[in-house]
């Protein structure tokens, strides 16, 4: 019974803190946006919130090990330059962003890989590899509870605008756009599954359907396959543009990484 009470207590604390956080983000009290978490059953919400039950935390832990491990020709680890991972607080809430000296935005995975190739002088990590997901989860976890705050960089505007166009564009054999489902029909049932508003609050997410952790890119590819559209190449800039648009659309909402989703 102690455990059960503890669990209920945790859930109450979570719901309360969540409501508080959302309330703070919503100064006018009119924000009706819903994180995917709010569309899940209580069981999955509890799984996400309990760090000893959230399977995404296995990857966060693994990311912690990698953080301290020297890699590449530099012989340095992430920790050698950045110190404690606490230095990463709030970072995930600001990505995608344009790195110094570059002229196009990268997502958080891209930024980590850039650090790896340019600074550690190590090999690039493959999309969806355990290492890249683990490091991303470790960094993103530091921003849990932070409001999404896209940077005020005017250079991002055209990329974000292209992301919005992609979001609105019909494609695939089924001739559907992201917006048709996730803007116009969110909250309704697609074959019994509630269509979420698609806010990128929990990435990387532990998706039960995947039975592992995955990135927003993987999630976008799933939707593209669903409407029978050709997925963009793994290194395509379209994913970053969509990410930029979605993060702006979710501005002020709280990060929950690592999220659990059905």
């Amino acid at each position: 019974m102690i455990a059960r009470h503890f669990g209920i207590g945790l859930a109450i604390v979570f719901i309360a803190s969540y409501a508080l956080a959302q309330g703070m983000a919503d100064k006018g009290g009119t924000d009706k946006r819903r994180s995917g978490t709010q569309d899940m059953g209580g069981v999955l919400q509890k799984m996400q919130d309990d760090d000893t039950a959230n399977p995404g935390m296995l990857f966060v832990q693994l990311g912690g090990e990698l953080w301290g491990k020297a890699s590449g020709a530099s012989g340095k680890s992430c920790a050698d330059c950045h110190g404690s991972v606490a230095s990463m607080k709030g970072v995930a809430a600001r990505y995608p962003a344009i790195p110094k000296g570059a002229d196009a935005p990268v997502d958080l995975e891209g930024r980590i890989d850039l650090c790896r190739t340019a600074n550690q002088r190590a090999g690039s990590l493959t999309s969806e590899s355990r290492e890249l997901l683990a490091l991303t989860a470790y960094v993103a976890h530091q921003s849990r509870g932070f409001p999404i705050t896209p940077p005020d960089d005017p250079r991002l505007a055209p990329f974000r605008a292209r992301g919005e166009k992609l979001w609105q564009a019909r494609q695939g054999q089924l001739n559907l756009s992201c917006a048709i489902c996730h803007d116009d029909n969110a909250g309704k049932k697609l074959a019994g599954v509630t269509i979420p508003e698609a806010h990128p609050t929990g990435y990387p997410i532990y998706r039960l359907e995947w039975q592992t952790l995955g990135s927003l890119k993987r999630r976008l590819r799933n939707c593209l396959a669903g409407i029978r559209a050709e997925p963009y190449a793994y290194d395509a800039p379209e994913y970053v543009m969509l990410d930029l648009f979605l993060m702006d659309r979710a501005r002020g909402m709280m990060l929950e990484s690592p999220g659990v989703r059905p």
Partner: protein
Amino acid sequence: MDRRRFLAGTATAIGAIVVLPLGTASATPEAMAGAIRKVVGASQVREGRVSLDLPPLVENGSTVPLVVSVESPMREADYIKAIHVFNEKNPQPNVFTARLGPRNGRAVVGTRIKLGDSQKIVAIAETSGGQFWSASADVIVTLAACLDEAT
């Protein structure tokens, strides 16, 4: 969106295990009854003392939390020595068997299971005195386990 195709794939896979020396081709209510009989032998199984905590409706069958709790003093003279869980529609009827004793203090086991479809789950507890108690629960699965989408 093309989940049925994968379901069909799963069905083929279930068919394929007929050639494996596993004894059961796929779990059915009958196969589950057979698996339970193997555990309990000729003993009577009574309903009660066991509570099986599963969400009645799950969004995805790949990871379904389950807790079995059994009323027991968990003392040398009287304890739960095993908890068995069965299902009727996965490829095989056995889910897990946990062995416990007085050192546990409490006859409670939690884990997460896969459900290939909406189905009935049965938990059976075996007491140190050789009695069997059971509980069952029906779970509706919106999305079955073992599916995948092209990624």
